């Protein structure tokens, strides 16, 4: 659940006025860091599929498919680890 304070960090606000891109870290990353998996998946898929596809007409579709696969895999791992740490491990006996 995103709190209003976190939502405010997603929208460029007054703090962005003092931001020097490329010299300073992007403001608010601490709150929305998990969204960075989207551009990461896109960049990886763009570069990888550029050298993997046989014909370049396939590139956009292949990039979209691989991006979604990466994101789905990351979400799957996150859910699995959540279940392991929050649900399964507390069920183990303390001693």
């Amino acid at each position, binding site marked *: 659940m995103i709190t209003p304070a976190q939502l405010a960090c997603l929208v460029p606000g007054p703090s962005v006025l003092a931001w020097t891109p*490329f*010299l300073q*870290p*992007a403001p608010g990353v*601490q709150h929305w860091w998990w969204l960075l998996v989207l551009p990461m998946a896109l960049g990886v898929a763009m*570069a990888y599929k550029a050298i*993997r596809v*046989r014909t*370049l007409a396939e590139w956009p579709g292949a990039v979209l498919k691989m991006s979604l696969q990466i994101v789905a895999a990351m979400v799957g791992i996150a859910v699995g680890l959540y279940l392991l740490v929050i649900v399964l491990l507390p069920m183990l006996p303390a001693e």
Partner: protein
Amino acid sequence: MSNASDTTFRPLGAILGWVFPGLGHIAAGNTKRGLYAMAGVLVLFIGGILVGGVDCVDRTEDRLWFVGQAGCGPIAFAADFANTAFLKSGDAAPMIKMPTPPGAPEVAVSSFKGLAHANEFGTLFVFLAGLLNICVLLDAAVRAPASDGVTAGRRLGEGASR
């Protein structure tokens, strides 16, 4: 005349691919493929610098990460130079004294230094850009020149992931 199954190794393609992402393909006549690969690598590289600032490329403090980041070529070294010239020198922002144990030498860092997730993701993005560019430049070295439009024949394993 060459075809897409030609696997002769061309070192010049790899060198040009390291000089700038995608340049190896472009120089060999595979312009569109080179531009696509360049776009992918630069999305990660520029995205990383944008998220973490130039501090996420640091040849001395993050040496192991830099080994991978150097795969991007001179642009990674330029980012490292900018980090040293603008941030570490104190030109871009005031330096902040860090708490140190008694007797230890005083340490000051730039107030623009990236911390936590911003630094981690910035470093990771540029690292991934470097690793992928190594894949791209190796492909430029073995891909047949002017083969963008060739569909018959393929290199070993090409297209297997579709």
